[in-house]
């Protein structure tokens, strides 16, 4: 197309013919390429280059190579916050993964029996997923309030008053509490996907296993579970991606700096404070270069782990 010189009528005709055969493709594809290219592909790609420059507020200064990365990894307080956040995000993922692949999977296998009332159970488990994380966060902030919250009042009513703790206010329990609150709002989704996968296993497979004398556990472990591996891998990858981007719940419940004393600070809240400043603690605002370096490291981490995950998912796929 580009090698056609303009103004030579004899060679314009193939171009016209090409256009007549292909114009509809342009009509079909241009809008999506424009919107997706401008507002997703371009920002994601240029965030890579942002991290290589020095920034003065929102103004780009000189090229600094990997200096921003070195700052995040070695200079206090960035290094402490960064490794702290990596640890917190990892715990976020590990605990969520553990809950959804034990309890979530177990519930899905039970629900697959489709007894009376099971549709109601499924709808109940999924309901919190429709709530905004802002509502989930504030609801549990109220429920877990150690003085007036319903959890504390309920425990006191049961004579278990000494169990009441400021769960969200002390370092030892704050992060785990936030993760459990997140699991409450999230678990309906893994249950939904696993249930669909369990129901997709052909009934004859189970019948064959039982004819061979398998117990219910053997049927699950040797028939159902291997066929669920691709779904488990997919949900695990999605969980990893979302957990390493988690932001709202901590921002709403614990503030932008992940109180108490950064005990619930995550990569995304650390990134947010570095990029946009922290109104609550008056930190230095607008470190665009350093924030971009944090963002690029998140991107790399998510990219590498999900690439491995997708490979595992494809390898575990069984045709039947």
């Amino acid at each position: 197309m580009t090698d056609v010189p303009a103004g030579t009528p004899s060679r314009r005709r193939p171009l016209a013919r090409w256009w007549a055969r292909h114009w509809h493709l342009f009509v079909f594809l241009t809008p999506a390429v424009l919107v997706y290219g401008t507002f997703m592909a371009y920002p994601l790609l240029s965030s890579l280059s942002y991290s290589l420059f020095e920034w003065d507020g929102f103004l780009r200064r000189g090229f600094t190579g990997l200096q921003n990365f070195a700052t995040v990894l070695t200079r206090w307080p960035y290094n402490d916050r960064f490794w702290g956040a990596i640890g917190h995000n990892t715990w976020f993922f590990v605990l969520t993964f553990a809950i959804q692949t034990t309890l979530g999977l177990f519930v899905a296998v039970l629900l697959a029996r489709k007894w009376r009332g099971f549709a109601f159970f499924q709808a109940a488990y999924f309901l919190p997923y429709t709530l905004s994380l802002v509502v989930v966060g504030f609801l549990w902030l109220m429920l877990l309030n150690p003085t007036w919250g319903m959890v504390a009042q309920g425990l006191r009513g049961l004579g278990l008053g000494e169990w009441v703790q400021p769960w969200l206010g002390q370092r030892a329990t704050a992060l785990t509490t936030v993760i459990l609150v997140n699991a409450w709002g999230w678990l309906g989704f893994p249950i939904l996907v696993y249930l669909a996968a369990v129901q997709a296993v052909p009934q004859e497979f189970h019948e064959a296993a039982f004819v061979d004398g398998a117990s219910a556990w053997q049927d699950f472990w040797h028939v159902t579970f291997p066929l669920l591996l691709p779904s488990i891998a997919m949900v695990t990858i999605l969980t990893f991606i979302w957990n390493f981007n988690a932001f709202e719940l901590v921002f709403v419940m614990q503030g932008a700096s992940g109180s108490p004393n950064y005990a619930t600070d995550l990569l995304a809240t650390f990134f947010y404070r570095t990029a946009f400043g922290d109104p609550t603690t008056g930190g230095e605002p607008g470190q665009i270069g350093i924030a971009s370096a944090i963002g690029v490291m998140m991107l790399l981490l998510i990219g590498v782990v999900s690439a491995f995950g997708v490979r595992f998912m494809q390898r575990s796929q069984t045709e039947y």
Partner: protein
Amino acid sequence: MVAAPTTRFLVRAVIYLILGALAVVFLYPVVLMVLTAFKPTPEIFRSPFGLPESWSLDTFRTVWQRAKFGLYLRNSLLITGASALLLLATAAPAAYALARYTFKLKPVLFLFFLAGIMIPIRLGILPLYLLMRDLGLLDTPFSLIFTYAASGTPMAVFLLSVFFRNLPRELEDAARIDGCNELQIFYRIMLPLVRPGLATVVIVNVVPWWNDFFFPLLFIQSDTWKTIPLGMQIFFGQHLVNWSLVFSGMVLASLPLLIIYLIMSRQFIAGLTAGAVKG
């Protein structure tokens, strides 16, 4: 498995017990939220678990006015609706072209669209923020609409191209013989046939868009275009000691999706399952 009737009955009872207990864990906090919303603050502290003494809607009315809830509701509806329309209008034709034509750039374009399927758009927030500022879109609904539509594109293109690929070739040929051009074939014949796919794309995206807090927090400053999650977060922060107001606000904020979910939970769950399994 053959088992004694009493054992079978016991197993059944235990399974119902487990699932029922879990349903309480998921449902009871939501029920508690709704009940508490009807109580004045002193009553919340005095009797946290009882039914409200009166079912008055006064606090809801207060929240509606003081939090400008009507305005936020309109904004959320407009922004979510426009994002869904824009996504369908851009992704459906692109998916159609990628599914049903062969051309030289097709593998490259497919890869281009699919590359974004695993990457959250948030990771490009800084360049996106500056782009919105330079385009003059900050503090307008368009910043959110473009962001949402762009972030939904990879999944929508992938999902819809699966639907389009499964349509029979003869339909297209028949329409071509009848004198339809390529655009008419797409719009009049093929698009109506993938309506379930379009519905899935909408269902998969509408919940996270409606509930999104991150992008409104960064893109919207003035009240005029705040969405429900952002408006409510600010309102809750200001009235944290007035539990009655906060609980009423939470119920109001959740009500739109909750109503839709209660009416059509079956379609909701089916759509999300299709989206998750195909994706």
